[in-house]
C-alpha cells in the first residue's frame, strides 16, 4: 500500500484537472462531488497507509517517482517519503480537507465560481500533500510555493473586489519574502551537505560546525515565519480572511499555515544542535502569541478575531518548537486543526445565517436560532481556551509545561497569551450568541440553520475537538502519549521531564484556574454588564485605539517599505535611468555629433586652402621622415 503513495497527491490533481478543464460544462453538484470524492479517495488511502505504517517495523519508506533536476553533484529526485510525521499530516490534510470540501458544497452553493472554487481547493490539497510528502527540501519547496499560489488564488477568489485582490497580493508577496529565506536555506543545505534529501542531510548534521547549522536553521525559519504568519511577517494572515470562509478554515487555519511547524519539526535536528536558532524560534513564537492575542481583544470582525487567534496559536506552537517540544507542537497542530477549522466553519455558518454579515456588533442572541452551530462553536471555544478535558487543554498544557522547564519567563508570557485567548474567544461567543439581536430586521427574518452538508462537518469536527486530547495524554499521568510515541523515529525524543509531579499538577492547575477566571471575567463584562464594543467613529481610550488599529503595523510597513519602494521606483526610472544612464549614452552620441559638426567647419570648400594644407602636410611628413 505504501508503494501507492504517489496516488495520494494524484487524486486531488485529477480532481483539479477535471474541474479545471470541464468544470464550466458540468453541473454544480457533479463538480462538487468530483472534488470531494477525490479528497475522500486520498483520505482512505492515507488511512490505509497510516495503518500499514503503524503495523510495520520499518518506519521510513521512500518512493521514487522520477528524476527531476540533476546538475553535477546536485541530484534532486522527485521522491516521496512516508514516515510517521508525514503520514500524520496526510491524515490531517485529507481528513479535514474532505470535511471542508463537503462543507463548501453547501457554503458555496450560490456562487457563480463554484467549480473554479473546487478547482483551486483540489490544487491546494495536491500541493499541500506534496509539501509534507517530499523527501527533500526542494519538493517541500514546490509544495510550499504551490500552496502559496493557491492561497493567493483563493483569497482573491472574488476577484472583482479590489480590497480582496490587494489582500491576496499581500499574502503572496509576504510569503515570498519568507520563501527567499527558505530557498537560500535549501541552497546552504546543499552547499554544506552536498545533498538536500532528508536522510542524507540529517545523517551528516552532527559533523558540521554549529555556526553553519545556525545559519541553515535561521534561514529555514525565515521561510516558516512567512508561511506560518509569525512576527514580523504575520500581517497577511488577518487580511487573508477576504477569501471564502472554508478557505480560511482549511488553508489559513488548519493546514497551510502549519507548514512552517512541519518544516521545523522535519528539520528538528538542526534546531536541536543550534541553541541560537531554537531560542530565536521560541522568542519569536512567544512574542507573536502575545502580540496577536492582544490585537484579538478588540477586533469586531468574527473572522479577523479567529485569524488573530490563529496567529497567536501558531506562535504558541513555535514556542513549543523553540523549547524542543516537537511532538507537543505537532500535537497542538493536530488539535488546533480540529478546533480552529471547527471555529471557522462555525463562523462561516453564522455568516451564512446572517446573510454575509461578519461584524459581531451586529449579531447577538443567535444561540436559539442556529443551535447546531452554537453548540459546536461553543465546544470549539472551550477547546481553544484550554479547559479540560477538551483537546486544546492537553496540547497547550504540554507545550507550556515544556516551556516552564526551559524558562519560566517564557512560560509566563505564554500563559498570559492563552488567558487572552480564552477572553477574546468567549467575548466572541457572548457577543454573537447571547443577548439581543442587534442586526437589521431583514437579517433577523432571514436567520436559519445551515444545510446538513455544512452542519455535518461541524459535528464531526466538534467530536474531534472534544476527544482529540486522547492522542497525547500527559506523561506524568502514566498514560500512553500516543503522539510522542508515534513520532519517536522522526524526532529526537526529549528526555523525560525531571520536574516533580507536584509542580506539573501545579502548572496544570494554574492554567485551568486562569482560564476559568478569564472566562468568568469575560462573562461579567459581556453578559452581566452587557458591554458592547464601541461603534465605528466612537472615541476610544488610547491603548484600545492602538490595539484596535492593530498597533498600526500595516501603516508602518506601508510607510517604511511600500511607499519608499514606489518612490524609489519612480526616482530610478525618471531620474537615474532616463537622466543619468541614458543621459550618458545619449551624451556620447551627441558628443560625437558635436565633434563632427565642429570638425566639419575645417572643410571650407576652398580648394586653395585644401591644397595649402596638403602641401604643408607633405612637407611636414617629409621633414619628420628625414629628421627623425
Amino acid at each position, binding site marked *: 500500500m505504501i508503494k501507492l503513495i504517489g496516488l495520494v497527491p494524484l487524486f486531488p490533481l485529477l480532481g483539479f484537472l477535471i474541474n479545471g478543464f470541464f468544470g464550466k460544462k458540468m453541473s454544480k453538484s457533479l463538480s462538487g462531488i468530483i472534488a470531494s470524492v477525490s479528497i475522500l479517495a486520498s483520505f482512505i488511502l492515507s488511512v490505509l497507509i497510516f495503518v500499514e505504517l503503524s503495523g510495520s517495523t520499518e518506519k521510513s519508506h521512500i518512493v521514487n517517482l522520477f528524476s*527531476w*533536476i540533476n*546538475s*553535477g553533484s546536485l541530484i534532486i529526485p522527485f521522491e516521496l517519503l512516508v514516515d510517521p510525521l508525514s503520514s500524520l499530516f496526510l491524515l490531517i490534510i485529507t481528513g479535514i480537507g474532505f470535511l471542508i470540501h463537503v462543507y463548501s458544497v453547501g457554503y458555496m452553493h450560490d456562487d457563480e465560481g463554484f467549480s473554479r472554487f473546487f478547482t483551486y481547493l483540489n490544487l491546494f490539497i495536491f500541493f499541500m500533500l506534496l509539501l509534507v510528502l517530499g523527501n527533500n527540501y526542494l519538493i517541500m519547496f514546490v509544495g510550499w510555493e504551490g500552496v502559496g499560489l493557491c492561497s493567493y488564488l483563493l483569497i482573491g477568489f472574488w476577484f*472583482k473586489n479590489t480590497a480582496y*485582490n490587494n489582500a491576496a497580493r499581500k499574502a503572496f508577496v509576504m510569503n515570498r519574502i519568507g520563501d527567499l529565506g527558505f530557498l*537560500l536555506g535549501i541552497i546552504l543545505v546543499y552547499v554544506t551537505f552536498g545533498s538536500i534529501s532528508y536522510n542524507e542531510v540529517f545523517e551528516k548534521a552532527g559533523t558540521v560546525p554549529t555556526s553553519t547549522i545556525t545559519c541553515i536553521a535561521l534561514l529555514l525559519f525565515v521561510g516558516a515565519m512567512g508561511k506560518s504568519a509569525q512576527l514580523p511577517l504575520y500581517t497577511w494572515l488577518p487580511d487573508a480572511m477576504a477569501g471564502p470562509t472554508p478557505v480560511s478554515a482549511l488553508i489559513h487555519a488548519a493546514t497551510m499555515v502549519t507548514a512552517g511547524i512541519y518544516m521545523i519539526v522535519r528539520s528538528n535536528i538542526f534546531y536541536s544542535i543550534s541553541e541560537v536558532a531554537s531560542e530565536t524560534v521560541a522568542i519569536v513564537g512567544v512574542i507573536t502569541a502575545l502580540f496577536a492575542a492582544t490585537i484579538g481583544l478588540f477586533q469586531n470582525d468574527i473572522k479577523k478575531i479567529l485569524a488573530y487567534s490563529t496567529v497567536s496559536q501558531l506562535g504558541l506552537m513555535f514556542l513549543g518548537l523553540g523549547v524542543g517540544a516537537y511532538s507537543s507542537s505537532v500535537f497542538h497542530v493536530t488539535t488546533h486543526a480540529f478546533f480552529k477549522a471547527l471555529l471557522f466553519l462555525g463562523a462561516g455558518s453564522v455568516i451564512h445565517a446572517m446573510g454575509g454579515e461578519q461584524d459581531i456588533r451586529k449579531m447577538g442572541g443567535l444561540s436559539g436560532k442556529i443551535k447546531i452551530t452554537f453548540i459546536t462553536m461553543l465546544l470549539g471555544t472551550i477547546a481553544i481556551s484550554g479547559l479540560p478535558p477538551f483537546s486544546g487543554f492537553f496540547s497547550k498544557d504540554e507545550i507550556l509545561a515544556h516551556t516552564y522547564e526551559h524558562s519560566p519567563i517564557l512560560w509566563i508570557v505564554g500563559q498570559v497569551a492563552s488567558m487572552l485567548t480564552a477572553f477574546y474567544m468567549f467575548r466572541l461567543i457572548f457577543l454573537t450568541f447571547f443577548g439581543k439581536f442587534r442586526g437589521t430586521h431583514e437579517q433577523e427574518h432571514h436567520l436559519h440553520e445551515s444545510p446538513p452538508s455544512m452542519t455535518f462537518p461541524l459535528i464531526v469536527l466538534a467530536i474531534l475537538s472534544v476527544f482529540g486530547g486522547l492522542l497525547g495524554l500527559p506523561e506524568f499521568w502514566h498514560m500512553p502519549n500516543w503522539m510522542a510515541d508515534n513520532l519517536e523515529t522522526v524526532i529526537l525524543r526529549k528526555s523525560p521531564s525531571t520536574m516533580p509531579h507536584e509542580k506539573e499538577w501545579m502548572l496544570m492547575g494554574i492554567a485551568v484556574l486562569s482560564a476559568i477566571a478569564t472566562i468568568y471575567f469575560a462573562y461579567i463584562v459581556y453578559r452581566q454588564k452587557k458591554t458592547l464594543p464601541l461603534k465605528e467613529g466612537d472615541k476610544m481610550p488610547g491603548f484600545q485605539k492602538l490595539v484596535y488599529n492593530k498597533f498600526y503595523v500595516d501603516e508602518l510597513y506601508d510607510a517604511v517599505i511600500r511607499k519608499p519602494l*514606489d518612490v524609489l521606483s519612480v526616482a530610478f526610472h525618471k531620474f537615474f535611468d532616463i537622466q543619468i544612464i541614458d543621459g550618458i*549614452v545619449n551624451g556620447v552620441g551627441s558628443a560625437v555629433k558635436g565633434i563632427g559638426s565642429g570638425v566639419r567647419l575645417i572643410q571650407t570648400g576652398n580648394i586653395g586652402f585644401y591644397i595649402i594644407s596638403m602641401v604643408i602636410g607633405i612637407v611636414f611628413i617629409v621633414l619628420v621622415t628625414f629628421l627623425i
Partner: protein
Amino acid sequence: MLTALLILFPLLAGLLVFFVKGNAARNLALGFSIIEFGLAIGAYCLFKHNPDACMLSFDHAWVKSLGIHFSVGIDGMGLLMVLLTTFLVPIIILSSFKNEYSNPHNFYGLILLMQMALIGVFTANDGFLFYVFWELALIPIYFICLLWGGEDRGRITFKFFVYTLFGSLFMLVGLIYLYNHTNVDGLKSWAVQDLYNAGRALTETQQSAVFWMIFIAFAIKMPVFPFHTWQPDTYVTAPTQGTMMLSGIMLKMGTFGVIKWLLPIVPLGLEKWGFTAIVLSVVGIIYASIIAISQKDFKRLIAYSSIAHVGLISAGILSCTQQGIQGAIMQMLAHGVNVVGLFFIADILFRHTGTREMDKLGGIRGMNGNFAVLFLIILLGSVALPLTNGFVGEFLLINGVYQFNATIAAFAGLTVILGAVYMLRAYQKIMLGDRNDSNVAFGSLAGTDKIVLSIICIVIVAFGIYPKPLNDIAEEAVKTIMLNLK
C-alpha cells in the same frame, strides 16, 4: 551537414518569401519555419543517439589565406539554443496572424533571414564566422523595427543599432587580437579551440583587456546594467513580433556568447573582473525590478523584467559553477518561451482594447476567464513558481551564485520577491477588479491566439514538471564547458 542545412534552409526560405505576394507569404513562412523546427528535432534525435555524429558538423574553408573557415557544428548548448530558436520562430509567426502588416512578404522574409543568422550564431565554430552571423542578425531586426515599428521609431531604432554595433566592434577588436595570438603550425586560425588556447596563453593584463572588450559586446546585447538603456524603448517601439525576436532569441546571443566565446578564453581576466561583472549583473536585477514596479505600460514592464531576468542569468554564468551555467542555459530556454508569451499577451491586450496602459485596463478576468488563466500560467512561469519552467533555471542560478558568494546570492534572490511584486501588481491592474466601461470590452480570443498561448502554457508546465530531456543535455554540455574552464 545537417547544421549547414539548418542555416541554409531559412536563408532560402526567406529569399523565397520575399517574392511571394500577400498573405501567402505568411502561410509560407509558417510552413517553412515548421519544417525548420522539424529539422532541429531531427538534430536533437541525432544528438541523443550520438553527440559526435559527423552529420552535426560542417567545415569548409572560406578565406584560406586568413584561416577563415565556414565551420559550424552543434554541441549540447548550441542544440538547445537551436531548438529554442526554431521552436519560437513558428510561434512568433503564428502569433502575428491577427496583425495586419503592410508588405507582409518583406516582414516574414526578414524574420526568416534573422532566424538564419541566429542559428548561425549558435552553431558557428569559427570566430570570424561567429562575428559575421552576429552582425548579420542585427540587420533584419533593424529593418523590422524601422519599417513596422511604432512611435518615434527612427530615433530609437537608430540608437539601438548604433549602440549594439558599437559594442560589437569592441568584440571584433578583441577577436582579432586573439586571432593574432593564435599559432597552429605557424599559421593563424579562427577556430574556436585555437582562440581558447591563444586566450589562455595571454598574461593577466592582456586577458583583462580582452575580457572587457568581448564582454561589453555581450553585455550590451543582453543587456546588463548599465548598458541597458536602449532596450526598454526598443522593446516598446518595435512591432510585437520584432520584440519577441529580440527578447526571446536575440537576447540569448549575449548570454550564449559569454558561455562559449568568453569564459573559456580568459580565465585569468574572469578571475580578476568576474566579481565586478557579477555585481553589475546583480545591481541590474534589483534596479530593473524596482523600476518595473512603477511602470504603466505593460510592454515596458516586461522589458524591465527581462533586464532583471537576464541579470540573474549573467550572474549565474559568471559564477563559473556547474549549477550557475546550467541554470543559465535552462533559464535562457525558459525565459525565451515566457517572455514571448508575455509580449504576446501585451499584443493581445492592445489588439482587443487599444491600449497597453495598465491604469486604463482592468476587469478582463470577468470578461474572458480562459485568457486570464493562460496569462496567469505564463506569469507564474515568469516569476519562477515551482513546477513551471522558470523555476529549474532560477533555482540553479541562485545556487550557482551562492557558491560564488553568499551575500551576492541573497541580493540576486530579491528577484524572487520583487518579481512577484511587479508581476502580480500588473496582473491585478490588467485582469482583476470590476470594470464596466465600454472601452475595455474584451471579447473572445481568436483561434490562432488560443493555439499559441496554449502551446506556450503547455511548454511552461511540461518542462517545469519534467525538465529532464533538456536538463540532461544542458548538464552534459556544461560538464564539457567546465572541463574547458579548468
